[in-house]
Protein backbone atom coordinates (compact mmCIF):
# COMPACT_ATOMS: atom_id res chain seq x y z
CA UNK A 1 0.00 0.00 0.00
CA UNK A 2 1.56 3.23 -1.12
CA UNK A 3 -0.23 6.46 -0.59
CA UNK A 4 0.19 9.52 -2.71
CA UNK A 5 -1.59 11.79 -0.26
CA UNK A 6 0.53 14.62 1.01
CA UNK A 7 0.08 14.64 4.72
CA UNK A 8 0.53 17.74 6.82
CA UNK A 9 3.31 17.49 9.32
CA UNK A 10 2.06 16.00 12.61
CA UNK A 11 2.70 19.15 14.57
CA UNK A 12 0.56 21.24 12.21
CA UNK A 13 -2.35 18.83 12.42
CA UNK A 14 -2.10 18.76 16.21
CA UNK A 15 -2.16 22.51 16.42
CA UNK A 16 -5.26 22.51 14.26
CA UNK A 17 -7.13 20.04 16.47
CA UNK A 18 -6.06 21.41 19.78
CA UNK A 19 -8.14 24.23 21.18
CA UNK A 20 -8.05 26.30 24.30
CA UNK A 21 -10.24 24.50 26.83
CA UNK A 22 -11.18 24.92 30.44
CA UNK A 23 -9.28 22.53 32.68
CA UNK A 24 -11.44 19.49 33.49
CA UNK A 25 -11.41 20.39 37.19
CA UNK A 26 -12.67 23.90 36.40
CA UNK A 27 -16.45 23.51 36.09
CA UNK A 28 -16.56 20.88 38.84
CA UNK A 29 -14.82 23.23 41.25
CA UNK A 30 -17.14 26.12 40.45
CA UNK A 31 -20.21 23.91 40.84
CA UNK A 32 -18.97 22.65 44.20
CA UNK A 33 -18.47 26.25 45.25
CA UNK A 34 -22.03 27.04 44.19
CA UNK A 35 -23.40 24.12 46.17
CA UNK A 36 -21.37 25.26 49.16
CA UNK A 37 -22.85 28.75 48.85
CA UNK A 38 -26.37 27.31 48.97
CA UNK A 39 -25.54 25.21 52.03
CA UNK A 40 -23.96 28.18 53.80
CA UNK A 41 -27.11 30.16 52.97
CA UNK A 42 -29.23 27.46 54.53
CA UNK A 43 -27.18 27.29 57.72
CA UNK A 44 -26.65 31.02 58.29
CA UNK A 45 -29.12 33.89 58.70
CA UNK A 46 -28.65 34.63 54.98
CA UNK A 47 -31.43 32.12 54.31
CA UNK A 48 -31.81 29.37 51.73
CA UNK A 49 -33.60 31.59 49.20
CA UNK A 50 -30.79 34.15 49.03
CA UNK A 51 -28.24 31.36 49.21
CA UNK A 52 -29.71 29.71 46.12
CA UNK A 53 -29.74 32.97 44.18
CA UNK A 54 -26.09 33.54 45.10
CA UNK A 55 -25.25 29.96 44.13
CA UNK A 56 -26.88 30.56 40.76
CA UNK A 57 -24.58 33.51 40.14
CA UNK A 58 -21.55 31.55 41.30
CA UNK A 59 -22.38 28.72 38.89
CA UNK A 60 -22.81 31.32 36.13
CA UNK A 61 -19.06 31.90 36.41
CA UNK A 62 -18.48 28.75 34.33
CA UNK A 63 -19.87 30.23 31.08
CA UNK A 64 -18.20 33.55 31.84
CA UNK A 65 -14.83 31.88 32.32
CA UNK A 66 -15.48 29.81 29.22
CA UNK A 67 -16.14 32.96 27.18
CA UNK A 68 -12.73 34.30 28.12
CA UNK A 69 -10.86 31.05 27.49
CA UNK A 70 -12.85 29.08 24.93
CA UNK A 71 -14.64 31.71 22.86
CA UNK A 72 -18.22 32.55 22.04
CA UNK A 73 -19.58 29.23 20.71
CA UNK A 74 -18.38 27.11 23.60
CA UNK A 75 -19.56 29.76 26.05
CA UNK A 76 -23.06 29.75 24.54
CA UNK A 77 -23.12 26.00 24.96
CA UNK A 78 -22.16 26.40 28.61
CA UNK A 79 -24.78 29.11 29.15
CA UNK A 80 -27.43 26.71 27.93
CA UNK A 81 -26.12 23.91 30.13
CA UNK A 82 -26.28 26.32 33.04
CA UNK A 83 -29.87 27.34 32.24
CA UNK A 84 -31.08 23.80 31.66
CA UNK A 85 -29.56 22.55 34.89
CA UNK A 86 -31.02 25.48 36.82
CA UNK A 87 -34.46 24.67 35.38
CA UNK A 88 -34.11 21.29 37.01
CA UNK A 89 -33.03 22.75 40.36
CA UNK A 90 -35.90 25.22 40.10
CA UNK A 91 -38.34 22.34 39.65
CA UNK A 92 -36.90 20.62 42.71
CA UNK A 93 -37.51 23.60 44.99
CA UNK A 94 -41.31 23.22 45.24
CA UNK A 95 -41.03 19.46 45.67
CA UNK A 96 -38.65 19.81 48.59
CA UNK A 97 -40.63 22.71 50.02
CA UNK A 98 -43.90 20.73 49.87
CA UNK A 99 -42.33 17.74 51.58
CA UNK A 100 -40.80 19.93 54.28
CA UNK A 101 -44.06 21.81 54.85
CA UNK A 102 -46.29 18.75 55.00
CA UNK A 103 -43.96 16.67 57.16
CA UNK A 104 -43.10 19.64 59.38
CA UNK A 105 -46.65 20.75 60.01
CA UNK A 106 -48.34 17.38 59.85
CA UNK A 107 -46.18 14.97 61.83
CA UNK A 108 -47.13 16.47 65.20
CA UNK A 109 -50.77 15.57 64.53
CA UNK A 110 -50.09 11.87 64.11
CA UNK A 111 -51.07 9.74 67.07
CA UNK A 112 -53.02 6.58 67.80
CA UNK A 113 -56.10 8.67 68.51
CA UNK A 114 -55.70 10.50 65.20
CA UNK A 115 -56.06 7.25 63.28
CA UNK A 116 -58.80 5.66 65.38
CA UNK A 117 -61.28 8.48 66.06
CA UNK A 118 -63.65 10.35 63.81
CA UNK A 119 -64.57 14.01 64.25
CA UNK A 120 -67.99 13.22 65.66
CA UNK A 121 -68.87 15.59 68.52
CA UNK A 122 -65.34 16.93 68.60
CA UNK A 123 -64.82 20.64 69.20
CA UNK A 124 -61.34 22.05 69.50
CA UNK A 125 -58.60 19.52 70.21
CA UNK A 126 -58.77 15.75 69.76
CA UNK A 127 -60.58 13.73 67.17
CA UNK A 128 -59.06 12.13 64.12
CA UNK A 129 -59.33 11.05 60.53
CA UNK A 130 -60.67 7.52 60.95
CA UNK A 131 -63.85 8.44 59.04
CA UNK A 132 -61.76 10.01 56.28
CA UNK A 133 -59.53 6.97 55.92
CA UNK A 134 -62.51 4.62 55.77
CA UNK A 135 -64.25 6.83 53.20
CA UNK A 136 -61.15 7.21 51.03
CA UNK A 137 -60.47 3.47 51.07
CA UNK A 138 -64.08 2.49 50.32
CA UNK A 139 -64.65 5.05 47.59
CA UNK A 140 -61.31 4.34 45.90
CA UNK A 141 -61.81 0.59 46.15
CA UNK A 142 -65.25 0.87 44.55
CA UNK A 143 -63.82 3.12 41.85
CA UNK A 144 -61.17 0.47 41.13
CA UNK A 145 -63.80 -2.26 40.98
CA UNK A 146 -65.63 -0.24 38.33
CA UNK A 147 -62.60 0.98 36.40
CA UNK A 148 -60.27 -2.00 36.25
CA UNK A 149 -62.56 -4.43 34.36
CA UNK A 150 -63.79 -1.74 31.99
CA UNK A 151 -60.30 -0.37 31.41
CA UNK A 152 -58.67 -3.77 31.03
CA UNK A 153 -61.28 -5.12 28.65
CA UNK A 154 -61.15 -1.96 26.59
CA UNK A 155 -57.39 -2.35 26.32
CA UNK A 156 -57.91 -5.98 25.29
CA UNK A 157 -60.36 -4.83 22.65
CA UNK A 158 -57.93 -2.22 21.35
CA UNK A 159 -54.96 -4.57 21.12
CA UNK A 160 -56.42 -8.03 20.48
CA UNK A 161 -59.66 -7.39 18.62
CA UNK A 162 -59.83 -3.83 17.30
CA UNK A 163 -56.35 -3.76 15.82
CA UNK A 164 -56.33 -0.78 13.50
CA UNK A 165 -60.03 -0.70 12.72
CA UNK A 166 -61.85 2.60 12.54
CA UNK A 167 -63.73 2.00 15.79
CA UNK A 168 -60.52 1.14 17.64
CA UNK A 169 -58.68 4.25 16.52
CA UNK A 170 -61.59 6.51 17.39
CA UNK A 171 -61.87 4.90 20.82
CA UNK A 172 -58.15 5.37 21.29
CA UNK A 173 -58.50 9.03 20.39
CA UNK A 174 -61.48 9.59 22.69
CA UNK A 175 -59.76 7.83 25.58
CA UNK A 176 -56.91 10.29 25.11
CA UNK A 177 -59.35 13.17 25.15
CA UNK A 178 -61.09 11.68 28.19
CA UNK A 179 -57.78 11.85 30.07
CA UNK A 180 -58.24 15.60 29.95
CA UNK A 181 -61.67 15.80 31.58
CA UNK A 182 -61.33 18.14 34.58
CA UNK A 183 -61.92 16.33 37.84
CA UNK A 184 -64.62 18.75 38.91
CA UNK A 185 -66.53 18.06 35.69
CA UNK A 186 -66.40 14.35 36.52
CA UNK A 187 -67.92 15.23 39.89
CA UNK A 188 -70.68 17.26 38.26
CA UNK A 189 -71.37 14.38 35.88
CA UNK A 190 -71.78 11.96 38.76
CA UNK A 191 -74.06 14.45 40.52
CA UNK A 192 -76.19 15.02 37.40
CA UNK A 193 -76.45 11.26 36.96
CA UNK A 194 -77.43 10.53 40.56
CA UNK A 195 -79.90 13.40 40.74
CA UNK A 196 -81.95 11.52 38.16
CA UNK A 197 -82.42 8.61 40.55
CA UNK A 198 -82.22 10.11 44.01
CA UNK A 199 -83.42 13.67 43.62
CA UNK A 200 -81.84 17.01 44.36
CA UNK A 201 -79.04 17.39 46.87
CA UNK A 202 -77.95 13.78 46.61
CA UNK A 203 -74.69 12.90 48.40
CA UNK A 204 -73.42 9.37 48.22
CA UNK A 205 -70.09 7.61 48.49
CA UNK A 206 -70.66 5.52 45.41
CA UNK A 207 -71.25 8.70 43.43
CA UNK A 208 -67.67 9.60 44.29
CA UNK A 209 -66.60 6.22 42.97
CA UNK A 210 -68.40 6.87 39.69
CA UNK A 211 -66.75 10.27 39.38
CA UNK A 212 -63.31 8.82 40.15
CA UNK A 213 -63.93 6.05 37.60
CA UNK A 214 -64.42 8.64 34.87
CA UNK A 215 -60.94 9.89 35.73
CA UNK A 216 -59.40 6.48 36.29
CA UNK A 217 -60.67 4.47 33.30
CA UNK A 218 -58.65 6.32 30.64
CA UNK A 219 -55.47 5.96 32.71
CA UNK A 220 -56.08 2.22 33.13
CA UNK A 221 -56.83 1.81 29.43
CA UNK A 222 -53.67 3.57 28.32
CA UNK A 223 -51.31 1.76 30.67
CA UNK A 224 -52.85 -1.68 30.05
CA UNK A 225 -52.75 -1.03 26.32
CA UNK A 226 -49.04 -0.22 26.49
CA UNK A 227 -48.40 -3.39 28.47
CA UNK A 228 -50.40 -5.66 26.14
CA UNK A 229 -48.54 -4.14 23.22
CA UNK A 230 -45.26 -5.25 24.79
CA UNK A 231 -46.29 -8.92 24.78
CA UNK A 232 -44.43 -10.41 21.80
CA UNK A 233 -46.70 -11.62 19.03
CA UNK A 234 -44.66 -14.81 18.90
CA UNK A 235 -46.20 -15.93 22.18
CA UNK A 236 -49.70 -15.51 20.78
CA UNK A 237 -48.70 -17.47 17.70
CA UNK A 238 -47.10 -20.21 19.79
CA UNK A 239 -50.35 -20.57 21.69
CA UNK A 240 -52.53 -20.59 18.56
CA UNK A 241 -50.26 -23.20 17.00
CA UNK A 242 -50.93 -25.47 19.98
CA UNK A 243 -54.62 -25.36 19.18
CA UNK A 244 -55.58 -22.88 21.89
CA UNK A 245 -58.57 -20.66 21.13
CA UNK A 246 -58.07 -16.91 21.03
CA UNK A 247 -59.83 -16.11 24.30
CA UNK A 248 -57.80 -18.68 26.22
CA UNK A 249 -54.66 -17.34 24.60
CA UNK A 250 -55.52 -13.87 25.85
CA UNK A 251 -56.55 -15.02 29.30
CA UNK A 252 -53.73 -17.50 29.90
CA UNK A 253 -50.78 -16.30 27.86
CA UNK A 254 -51.12 -12.60 27.09
CA UNK A 255 -52.50 -11.38 30.43
CA UNK A 256 -50.11 -13.41 32.65
CA UNK A 257 -47.15 -12.23 30.59
CA UNK A 258 -48.24 -8.61 30.95
CA UNK A 259 -49.41 -9.01 34.56
CA UNK A 260 -46.60 -7.13 36.30
CA UNK A 261 -47.01 -4.16 34.00
CA UNK A 262 -50.78 -4.18 34.35
CA UNK A 263 -50.58 -4.26 38.15
CA UNK A 264 -48.09 -1.39 38.05
CA UNK A 265 -50.35 0.63 35.78
CA UNK A 266 -53.42 0.03 37.92
CA UNK A 267 -51.55 0.91 41.11
CA UNK A 268 -50.40 4.19 39.56
CA UNK A 269 -53.96 4.89 38.41
CA UNK A 270 -55.22 4.33 41.96
CA UNK A 271 -52.48 6.59 43.29
CA UNK A 272 -53.66 9.24 40.90
CA UNK A 273 -57.32 9.25 41.90
CA UNK A 274 -56.94 8.57 45.62
CA UNK A 275 -55.87 12.17 46.13
CA UNK A 276 -58.71 13.71 44.11
CA UNK A 277 -60.66 16.31 46.01
CA UNK A 278 -62.98 18.28 43.77
CA UNK A 279 -65.35 15.52 42.59
CA UNK A 280 -65.73 14.15 46.13
CA UNK A 281 -66.47 17.61 47.45
CA UNK A 282 -69.46 17.69 45.12
CA UNK A 283 -70.94 14.22 45.21
CA UNK A 284 -69.60 12.51 48.36
CA UNK A 285 -69.90 15.61 50.50
CA UNK A 286 -68.41 15.86 53.97
CA UNK A 287 -69.35 14.64 57.40
CA UNK A 288 -67.85 14.26 60.85
CA UNK A 289 -68.99 10.67 61.35
CA UNK A 290 -67.86 7.29 60.12
CA UNK A 291 -69.95 5.89 57.28
CA UNK A 292 -69.35 2.37 56.04
CA UNK A 293 -72.18 2.39 53.51
CA UNK A 294 -71.31 3.61 50.04
CA UNK A 295 -74.98 3.84 49.16
CA UNK A 296 -76.17 5.85 52.11
CA UNK A 297 -75.50 9.53 52.44
CA UNK A 298 -72.39 11.64 52.94
CA UNK A 299 -68.97 10.14 53.27
CA UNK A 300 -65.85 11.90 54.47
CA UNK A 301 -62.56 11.40 52.63
CA UNK A 302 -58.99 12.42 53.42
CA UNK A 303 -58.65 15.07 50.71
CA UNK A 304 -62.00 16.65 51.52
CA UNK A 305 -61.14 16.52 55.21
CA UNK A 306 -57.88 18.34 54.53
CA UNK A 307 -59.68 20.94 52.45
CA UNK A 308 -62.48 21.68 54.87
CA UNK A 309 -60.35 21.56 58.02
CA UNK A 310 -57.99 24.08 56.47
CA UNK A 311 -60.57 26.37 54.85
CA UNK A 312 -63.14 26.39 57.66
CA UNK A 313 -61.12 25.69 60.80
CA UNK A 314 -63.69 27.10 63.19
CA UNK A 315 -62.74 28.41 66.63
CA UNK A 316 -60.18 27.69 67.95
CA UNK A 317 -58.44 27.30 64.61
CA UNK A 318 -55.11 25.73 65.56
CA UNK A 319 -56.23 22.14 66.30
CA UNK A 320 -58.21 21.97 63.07
CA UNK A 321 -55.31 23.29 61.00
CA UNK A 322 -52.96 20.83 62.64
CA UNK A 323 -55.37 17.96 61.81
CA UNK A 324 -55.57 19.22 58.22
CA UNK A 325 -51.80 18.97 57.81
CA UNK A 326 -51.84 15.60 59.52
CA UNK A 327 -54.41 14.35 57.03
CA UNK A 328 -52.39 15.83 54.16
CA UNK A 329 -49.32 13.98 55.42
CA UNK A 330 -51.22 10.69 55.65
CA UNK A 331 -52.59 11.21 52.15
CA UNK A 332 -49.14 12.01 50.80
CA UNK A 333 -47.70 8.91 52.48
CA UNK A 334 -50.42 6.72 50.96
CA UNK A 335 -49.78 8.11 47.50
CA UNK A 336 -46.01 7.77 47.83
CA UNK A 337 -46.42 4.20 49.12
CA UNK A 338 -48.60 3.32 46.14
CA UNK A 339 -46.00 4.76 43.78
CA UNK A 340 -43.28 2.80 45.50
CA UNK A 341 -45.31 -0.41 45.35
CA UNK A 342 -45.90 0.16 41.64
CA UNK A 343 -42.19 0.56 40.97
CA UNK A 344 -41.31 -2.49 43.05
CA UNK A 345 -43.89 -4.65 41.29
CA UNK A 346 -42.63 -3.70 37.87
CA UNK A 347 -39.05 -4.23 39.02
CA UNK A 348 -39.40 -7.62 40.70
CA UNK A 349 -42.29 -9.35 39.01
CA UNK A 350 -41.62 -8.79 35.34
CA UNK A 351 -41.11 -12.16 33.65
CA UNK A 352 -37.43 -12.94 33.39
CA UNK A 353 -35.71 -13.17 30.05
CA UNK A 354 -38.42 -11.41 28.10
CA UNK A 355 -37.27 -10.27 24.74
Amino acid sequence: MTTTLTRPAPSELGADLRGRRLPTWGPTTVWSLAAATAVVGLLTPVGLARGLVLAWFVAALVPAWSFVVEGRRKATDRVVTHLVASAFVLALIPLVSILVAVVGKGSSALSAEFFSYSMRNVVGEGGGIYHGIIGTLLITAAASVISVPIGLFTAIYLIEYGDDSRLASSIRFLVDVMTGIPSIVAGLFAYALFVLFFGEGVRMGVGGSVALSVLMIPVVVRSCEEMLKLVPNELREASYALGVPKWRTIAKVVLPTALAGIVTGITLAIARVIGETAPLLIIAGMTDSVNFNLFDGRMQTLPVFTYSALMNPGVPAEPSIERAWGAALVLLLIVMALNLVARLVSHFFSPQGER
Partner: protein
Amino acid sequence: MAKSIDVTDLNIYYGDFLAVQDVNITIPARAVTAFIGPSGCGKSTFLRSLNRMHEVIRGAYVDGKVLVDGEDLYAQEMDPVNVRRKIGMVFQRPNPFPTMSIAENVLAGQRLNSKRMKKSEADDVVEQSLRRAGLWAEVKERLDRPGSSLSGGQQQRLCIARAIAVEPEVLLMDEPCSALDPISTSVIEDLIHELKNDYTIVIVTHNMQQAARVSDQTAFFNLAGVGQPGRLVELGPTEKMFANPDDPATEAYIQGRFG
Protein backbone atom coordinates in the same frame (compact mmCIF):
# COMPACT_ATOMS: atom_id res chain seq x y z
CA MET B 1 -50.34 -41.36 13.17
CA ALA B 2 -48.56 -39.33 10.51
CA LYS B 3 -50.72 -38.13 7.64
CA SER B 4 -50.00 -36.99 4.13
CA ILE B 5 -51.22 -33.62 2.84
CA ASP B 6 -52.74 -33.00 -0.58
CA VAL B 7 -53.01 -29.41 -1.71
CA THR B 8 -55.00 -28.57 -4.84
CA ASP B 9 -55.33 -25.18 -6.55
CA LEU B 10 -54.60 -23.20 -3.42
CA ASN B 11 -54.72 -19.39 -3.60
CA ILE B 12 -53.90 -17.37 -0.49
CA TYR B 13 -55.14 -13.82 -0.06
CA TYR B 14 -54.50 -11.02 2.39
CA GLY B 15 -57.61 -8.93 1.94
CA ASP B 16 -57.68 -8.29 -1.77
CA PHE B 17 -54.02 -9.05 -2.24
CA LEU B 18 -53.21 -12.42 -3.78
CA ALA B 19 -50.05 -13.61 -2.00
CA VAL B 20 -49.66 -17.17 -3.27
CA GLN B 21 -51.20 -18.56 -6.44
CA ASP B 22 -52.25 -21.98 -7.66
CA VAL B 23 -50.26 -24.34 -5.50
CA ASN B 24 -50.63 -28.05 -6.14
CA ILE B 25 -48.47 -30.29 -4.03
CA THR B 26 -48.53 -33.61 -2.24
CA ILE B 27 -46.60 -33.86 0.98
CA PRO B 28 -45.94 -37.49 1.89
CA ALA B 29 -46.25 -38.88 5.39
CA ARG B 30 -43.17 -39.81 7.45
CA ALA B 31 -40.86 -37.75 5.32
CA VAL B 32 -39.31 -34.30 5.40
CA THR B 33 -40.40 -31.83 2.76
CA ALA B 34 -38.35 -28.63 2.49
CA PHE B 35 -39.60 -25.35 1.03
CA ILE B 36 -36.89 -23.13 -0.41
CA GLY B 37 -36.99 -19.89 -2.34
CA PRO B 38 -36.06 -16.20 -2.14
CA SER B 39 -37.46 -13.92 0.58
CA GLY B 40 -41.06 -12.87 0.10
CA CYS B 41 -41.88 -15.69 -2.31
CA GLY B 42 -44.73 -16.93 -0.17
CA LYS B 43 -43.18 -20.13 1.19
CA SER B 44 -43.81 -19.14 4.81
CA THR B 45 -47.30 -17.95 3.98
CA PHE B 46 -48.01 -21.26 2.32
CA LEU B 47 -46.60 -23.16 5.28
CA ARG B 48 -48.84 -21.20 7.64
CA SER B 49 -51.86 -21.92 5.48
CA LEU B 50 -51.29 -25.63 6.15
CA ASN B 51 -52.54 -25.23 9.70
CA ARG B 52 -54.57 -22.07 9.16
CA MET B 53 -52.11 -19.97 11.14
CA HIS B 54 -52.10 -17.29 8.46
CA GLU B 55 -55.70 -16.49 9.43
CA VAL B 56 -54.33 -14.79 12.54
CA ILE B 57 -53.72 -11.82 10.25
CA ARG B 58 -56.91 -9.87 9.71
CA GLY B 59 -58.45 -10.36 6.28
CA ALA B 60 -56.43 -13.42 5.32
CA TYR B 61 -58.27 -16.23 3.56
CA VAL B 62 -57.71 -18.93 0.94
CA ASP B 63 -59.52 -20.74 -1.78
CA GLY B 64 -58.65 -24.21 -2.98
CA LYS B 65 -58.34 -27.42 -1.02
CA VAL B 66 -55.94 -28.68 1.62
CA LEU B 67 -56.69 -32.34 2.27
CA VAL B 68 -55.21 -34.08 5.27
CA ASP B 69 -56.11 -37.73 5.26
CA GLY B 70 -58.97 -36.96 2.88
CA GLU B 71 -60.44 -34.15 5.02
CA ASP B 72 -60.47 -30.59 3.70
CA LEU B 73 -59.00 -28.26 6.34
CA TYR B 74 -60.93 -25.38 4.85
CA ALA B 75 -64.33 -27.04 4.73
CA GLN B 76 -67.10 -24.93 6.23
CA GLU B 77 -67.47 -26.93 9.43
CA MET B 78 -63.75 -27.17 10.19
CA ASP B 79 -62.59 -25.32 13.31
CA PRO B 80 -59.15 -23.77 12.83
CA VAL B 81 -58.40 -24.29 16.51
CA ASN B 82 -58.83 -28.05 16.16
CA VAL B 83 -56.87 -28.05 12.92
CA ARG B 84 -53.91 -26.54 14.76
CA ARG B 85 -54.05 -29.26 17.40
CA LYS B 86 -53.50 -31.84 14.65
CA ILE B 87 -50.88 -29.85 12.78
CA GLY B 88 -48.25 -28.38 15.06
CA MET B 89 -45.82 -25.60 14.33
CA VAL B 90 -42.32 -24.51 15.34
CA PHE B 91 -41.32 -20.93 14.71
CA GLN B 92 -38.31 -19.05 13.50
CA ARG B 93 -37.33 -17.76 16.91
CA PRO B 94 -37.69 -19.98 19.96
CA ASN B 95 -40.71 -18.69 21.88
CA PRO B 96 -41.20 -20.49 25.20
CA PHE B 97 -43.83 -18.87 27.44
CA PRO B 98 -41.88 -16.63 29.82
CA THR B 99 -44.36 -17.09 32.68
CA MET B 100 -44.07 -20.88 32.65
CA SER B 101 -41.47 -23.38 33.81
CA ILE B 102 -39.86 -25.92 31.48
CA ALA B 103 -42.37 -28.62 32.43
CA GLU B 104 -45.31 -26.22 32.14
CA ASN B 105 -44.09 -25.16 28.73
CA VAL B 106 -44.14 -28.75 27.55
CA LEU B 107 -47.65 -29.16 28.92
CA ALA B 108 -48.79 -25.77 27.60
CA GLY B 109 -51.07 -27.26 24.95
CA GLN B 110 -52.99 -29.20 27.59
CA ARG B 111 -52.81 -26.60 30.34
CA LEU B 112 -53.96 -23.68 28.22
CA ASN B 113 -56.98 -25.68 27.18
CA SER B 114 -57.65 -26.59 30.81
CA LYS B 115 -57.42 -30.28 30.06
CA ARG B 116 -57.50 -32.33 33.27
CA MET B 117 -54.59 -34.71 33.71
CA LYS B 118 -53.39 -36.87 36.52
CA LYS B 119 -50.02 -35.90 37.91
CA SER B 120 -48.41 -39.16 36.78
CA GLU B 121 -49.91 -38.79 33.33
CA ALA B 122 -48.61 -35.23 33.05
CA ASP B 123 -45.14 -36.30 34.19
CA ASP B 124 -45.22 -38.98 31.52
CA VAL B 125 -46.09 -36.52 28.80
CA VAL B 126 -43.31 -34.17 29.92
CA GLU B 127 -40.70 -36.92 29.95
CA GLN B 128 -41.79 -38.50 26.68
CA SER B 129 -41.95 -35.21 24.82
CA LEU B 130 -38.62 -33.98 26.16
CA ARG B 131 -36.98 -37.32 25.33
CA ARG B 132 -38.27 -37.16 21.78
CA ALA B 133 -37.02 -33.61 21.47
CA GLY B 134 -33.62 -34.79 22.74
CA LEU B 135 -33.73 -32.41 25.67
CA TRP B 136 -34.58 -34.71 28.58
CA ALA B 137 -31.02 -35.42 29.69
CA GLU B 138 -30.17 -31.73 29.77
CA VAL B 139 -33.17 -30.47 31.71
CA LYS B 140 -34.49 -33.33 33.82
CA GLU B 141 -32.90 -31.85 36.95
CA ARG B 142 -34.49 -28.42 36.53
CA LEU B 143 -37.95 -28.90 35.13
CA ASP B 144 -39.37 -26.15 37.32
CA ARG B 145 -36.93 -23.47 36.17
CA PRO B 146 -38.32 -20.88 33.73
CA GLY B 147 -38.18 -21.92 30.09
CA SER B 148 -36.32 -18.73 29.27
CA SER B 149 -33.37 -19.86 31.40
CA LEU B 150 -32.29 -22.26 28.64
CA SER B 151 -29.94 -21.47 25.77
CA GLY B 152 -31.36 -20.59 22.37
CA GLY B 153 -30.91 -24.07 20.92
CA GLN B 154 -32.37 -25.70 24.02
CA GLN B 155 -35.32 -23.29 23.91
CA GLN B 156 -36.01 -24.31 20.32
CA ARG B 157 -35.97 -27.99 21.28
CA LEU B 158 -38.27 -27.12 24.18
CA CYS B 159 -40.63 -25.58 21.62
CA ILE B 160 -40.45 -28.78 19.57
CA ALA B 161 -41.23 -30.79 22.71
CA ARG B 162 -44.16 -28.47 23.38
CA ALA B 163 -45.44 -28.93 19.84
CA ILE B 164 -45.25 -32.75 19.92
CA ALA B 165 -46.75 -32.97 23.42
CA VAL B 166 -50.20 -32.32 21.94
CA GLU B 167 -49.64 -35.34 19.65
CA PRO B 168 -50.02 -33.70 16.27
CA GLU B 169 -49.82 -35.61 13.02
CA VAL B 170 -47.87 -33.03 11.09
CA LEU B 171 -45.06 -30.76 12.25
CA LEU B 172 -44.53 -27.50 10.39
CA MET B 173 -41.21 -25.74 10.93
CA ASP B 174 -40.71 -22.15 9.85
CA GLU B 175 -36.95 -21.61 9.54
CA PRO B 176 -36.41 -23.29 12.91
CA CYS B 177 -32.65 -22.83 12.90
CA SER B 178 -32.23 -19.33 11.51
CA ALA B 179 -31.81 -17.79 14.97
CA LEU B 180 -29.43 -20.48 16.24
CA ASP B 181 -25.69 -21.04 16.21
CA PRO B 182 -24.19 -23.82 14.00
CA ILE B 183 -23.87 -26.35 16.83
CA SER B 184 -27.48 -25.99 17.95
CA THR B 185 -28.49 -26.12 14.32
CA SER B 186 -26.86 -29.48 13.79
CA VAL B 187 -28.51 -30.83 16.97
CA ILE B 188 -31.90 -29.79 15.63
CA GLU B 189 -31.19 -31.24 12.21
CA ASP B 190 -30.37 -34.59 13.82
CA LEU B 191 -33.60 -34.31 15.74
CA ILE B 192 -35.56 -33.76 12.53
CA HIS B 193 -34.08 -36.99 11.22
CA GLU B 194 -35.36 -38.80 14.28
CA LEU B 195 -38.78 -37.19 14.22
CA LYS B 196 -39.56 -38.09 10.65
CA ASN B 197 -40.10 -41.69 11.72
CA ASP B 198 -43.26 -40.55 13.48
CA TYR B 199 -44.35 -37.32 11.87
CA THR B 200 -44.93 -35.67 8.57
CA ILE B 201 -42.48 -32.77 8.61
CA VAL B 202 -42.52 -29.63 6.50
CA ILE B 203 -39.63 -27.22 6.90
CA VAL B 204 -39.06 -23.80 5.43
CA THR B 205 -35.42 -22.90 5.18
CA HIS B 206 -33.21 -20.25 3.68
CA ASN B 207 -30.22 -22.49 4.01
CA MET B 208 -29.76 -24.65 0.91
CA GLN B 209 -27.32 -27.00 2.61
CA GLN B 210 -29.84 -27.56 5.34
CA ALA B 211 -32.54 -28.46 2.82
CA ALA B 212 -30.10 -30.87 1.17
CA ARG B 213 -29.14 -32.41 4.51
CA VAL B 214 -32.54 -32.94 6.11
CA SER B 215 -35.18 -33.28 3.43
CA ASP B 216 -36.45 -36.10 1.25
CA GLN B 217 -38.25 -33.86 -1.15
CA THR B 218 -37.77 -30.19 -1.94
CA ALA B 219 -40.18 -27.58 -3.27
CA PHE B 220 -38.89 -24.39 -4.84
CA PHE B 221 -41.09 -21.28 -4.60
CA ASN B 222 -40.54 -18.07 -6.51
CA LEU B 223 -42.28 -14.83 -7.38
CA ALA B 224 -43.72 -14.64 -10.87
CA GLY B 225 -42.40 -11.05 -10.98
CA VAL B 226 -42.33 -7.85 -8.94
CA GLY B 227 -45.74 -7.31 -7.32
CA GLN B 228 -46.90 -10.71 -8.59
CA PRO B 229 -48.03 -13.53 -6.32
CA GLY B 230 -45.63 -16.28 -5.29
CA ARG B 231 -46.01 -19.74 -6.79
CA LEU B 232 -44.60 -23.22 -6.59
CA VAL B 233 -42.03 -23.55 -9.39
CA GLU B 234 -40.76 -27.05 -8.98
CA LEU B 235 -41.11 -30.03 -6.71
CA GLY B 236 -38.99 -33.16 -6.66
CA PRO B 237 -36.81 -35.54 -4.68
CA THR B 238 -34.11 -33.55 -2.96
CA GLU B 239 -31.13 -35.22 -4.75
CA LYS B 240 -32.65 -34.51 -8.13
CA MET B 241 -33.57 -30.91 -7.24
CA PHE B 242 -30.01 -30.20 -6.20
CA ALA B 243 -28.26 -32.26 -8.89
CA ASN B 244 -30.29 -31.47 -11.92
CA PRO B 245 -33.48 -29.47 -11.59
CA ASP B 246 -35.89 -29.10 -14.50
CA ASP B 247 -36.50 -25.40 -14.19
CA PRO B 248 -33.68 -22.95 -14.98
CA ALA B 249 -34.86 -20.62 -12.17
CA THR B 250 -34.46 -23.43 -9.64
CA GLU B 251 -30.97 -24.12 -10.88
CA ALA B 252 -30.05 -20.46 -10.75
CA TYR B 253 -31.37 -20.12 -7.20
CA ILE B 254 -29.69 -23.28 -5.93
CA GLN B 255 -26.39 -22.23 -7.41
CA GLY B 256 -26.71 -18.93 -5.62
CA ARG B 257 -27.18 -16.73 -8.65
CA PHE B 258 -30.08 -14.85 -7.03
CA GLY B 259 -32.19 -14.67 -3.91
